[in-house]
């Protein structure tokens, strides 16, 4: 006969309970204890229901109100049905009816939980964004600067800095022309730009205002307006403190995971860190759109042709049709969805006022001539 591990509640037992093997027989279920004691519930008085912490534990009661047998071993109910036949059929049907009722309640609860989740999905992100922005505003800009300093060692690893006045002066002059269009607290930052010798077509800004332009970008650009467009875009990441927002957002994700899972140690901690890293490697769609539109406005206010930015995006998509290009770290790979962005920029440009343009003291042609290996 099949045996199912379980237990017995009975007031006569020390501590009121003991482990037992449940054995369904033709007329009754027996609970056999290690001590040799046997408790019996006959099918004529048997009532069964599922319960316990998991809801899957089967409880058996009979005529004696203080005696309860229990087991979570799978197959016990089926074994009782098979062993008892018609004698146990009533009790088995009762347990199954209760189980069906519990399932119905579970289904309803899951429905409610799902509805709550859907509602949260639509309400939490906007609230979260407001909270992130609020938190970043509370942090002084000196935090951005510190963060930028921490990241600047990574920058040094990309290649040697070009100190030639024709090259460095060209990039610096663009920044100096863009600077007056920025708010005073951003103008007060050390908006230093370095041109780094590299074949990569890339430019980036660190939180706090340090910028880098890789010389590959100067070689590929068709004019100063293209370079100015990219640099204006990067300056807008600094101005809107996108790096900080990113970190605060990632910290928020970790906090949310902590609330959901109860604890962010262990695997969840690792997952949260992974999410944070992924979040830090590229900015969000909203942040890029903000940098594009405000950047093109900044470029126009400085007298550059605002069409330079979308023209450069278009040129880049021709050079590297996919991010499988050898320069995986290129501006293109950190700035995808260029078609969408070109369209948004071109729609915005007619509404912009371009300031009067004065000739640059340092020209792109001179800078390129000074670059090696052209």
């Amino acid at each position, binding site marked *: 006969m099949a045996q199912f*591990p*379980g*237990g*017995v*509640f009975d007031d006569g037992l020390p*501590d*009121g*309970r*003991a*482990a*037992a093997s449940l054995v369904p027989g033709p007329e009754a279920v027996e609970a056999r204890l290690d001590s040799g004691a046997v408790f019996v519930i006959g099918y004529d008085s048997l009532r069964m229901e599922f*319960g*316990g*912490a*998991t*809801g899957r*534990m089967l*409880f058996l009661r009979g005529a004696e109100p203080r005696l*309860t047998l*229990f*087991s*979570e071993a799978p197959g016990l109910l089926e074994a009782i049905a098979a062993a008892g036949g018609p004698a146990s059929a009533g009790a088995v049907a009762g347990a199954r009816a209760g189980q069906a009722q519990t399932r119905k309640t579970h289904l309803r*609860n*899951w429905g*409610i*939980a799902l509805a709550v989740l859907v509602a949260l999905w639509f309400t939490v992100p906007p609230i979260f964004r407001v909270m992130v922005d609020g938190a970043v505003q509370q942090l002084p800009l000196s935090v951005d600067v510190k963060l930028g300093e921490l990241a600047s060692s990574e920058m040094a690893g990309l290649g040697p800095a070009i100190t030639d006045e024709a090259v460095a002066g060209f990039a610096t002059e663009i920044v100096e022309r863009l600077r007056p269009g920025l708010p005073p607290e951003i103008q007060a930052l050390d908006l230093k730009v370095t041109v780094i010798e590299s074949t990569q077509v890339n430019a980036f800004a660190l939180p706090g205002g340090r910028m880098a332009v890789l010389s590959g970008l100067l070689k590929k650009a068709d004019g100063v307006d293209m370079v100015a467009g990219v640099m204006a875009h990067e300056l807008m990441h600094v101005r809107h403190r996108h790096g900080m927002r990113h970190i605060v957002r990632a910290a928020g994700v970790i906090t949310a995971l902590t609330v*959901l*899972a*109860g*604890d962010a*140690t*262990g*695997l*969840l901690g690792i997952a949260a860190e992974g999410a944070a890293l992924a979040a830090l490697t590229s900015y969000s769609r909203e942040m890029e759109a903000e940098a594009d539109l405000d950047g093109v406005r900044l470029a126009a206010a400085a007298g550059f042709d605002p069409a330079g930015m979308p023209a450069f995006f278009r040129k880049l998509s021709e050079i590297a049709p996919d991010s499988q290009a050898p320069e995986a770290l290129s501006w293109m790979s950190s700035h995808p969805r260029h078609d969408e962005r070109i369209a948004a920029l071109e729609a915005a440009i007619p509404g912009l006022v371009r300031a009067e343009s004065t000739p640059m003291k340092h020209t792109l042609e001179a800078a390129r001539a000074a670059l090696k290996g052209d």
Partner: protein
Amino acid sequence: MTAQLDFSIDHRPDFPLLQVRLGAGQSLFAEPAAMVTMSPALHMRAGLKGGLGKSLGRMFGGESLIVNTFSAPNGAGAIDFAPAALGDIHHYALGNGGGLMLQRGAFLAHGEGVTLDAKWQGARGFFSGNGMVMLRAGGSGDLFFNGYGAVMPIDVDGGYYVDTGYVLAFEDTLSYRVTTMPGLRPGTGQKLKTFFLGGEGLVCQFSGRGRVWVQTRQIGSFLGWIYPFRPVKQRN
């Protein structure tokens, strides 16, 4: 069930220390960083226990991936353990037909023959504020868990309510659901007012037969109480 391990818990209940005296050939599995002292005869090995799947389950239960295994291959020895939180340690002997549900973070150590799994609690866990996962100890053998404050056992026979923040462990013969305080149900206005102002919102409603262990303090409440006294930097 009587204990298989020779142990004692001293300095109870605020700063207790668990001492386990392993006989030759015995093993003990403990939460990392819980060890305070150890006899030189014993061996300690850090590592995954019960395979990767089980370990991942433990992680989601808020327990660390690594379990330290203490063994006595060459002869007897003693180990002392201290939990991270200020609170009592409790011993439970598994093997009376059921298992024990444990709040995440409550696990301290267990002997041979005990299994530990993470059990997804779904919405119940979410609303209890205790995380969606609890640990479930099964098999037979010795289990040690710790709470914050003193640990008080309550024998439930029928029904019982416990504030969700104070539930430390319970026998799995008990069914439970997270609900609002029973008196608050009719009259939604009063219910919401009590929920938000009274702070007595959610309780675990236990039913059936079995034992519940309640911790007499709650970390969250303590942090809330101490918060106004924290040192703050003057802004100028």
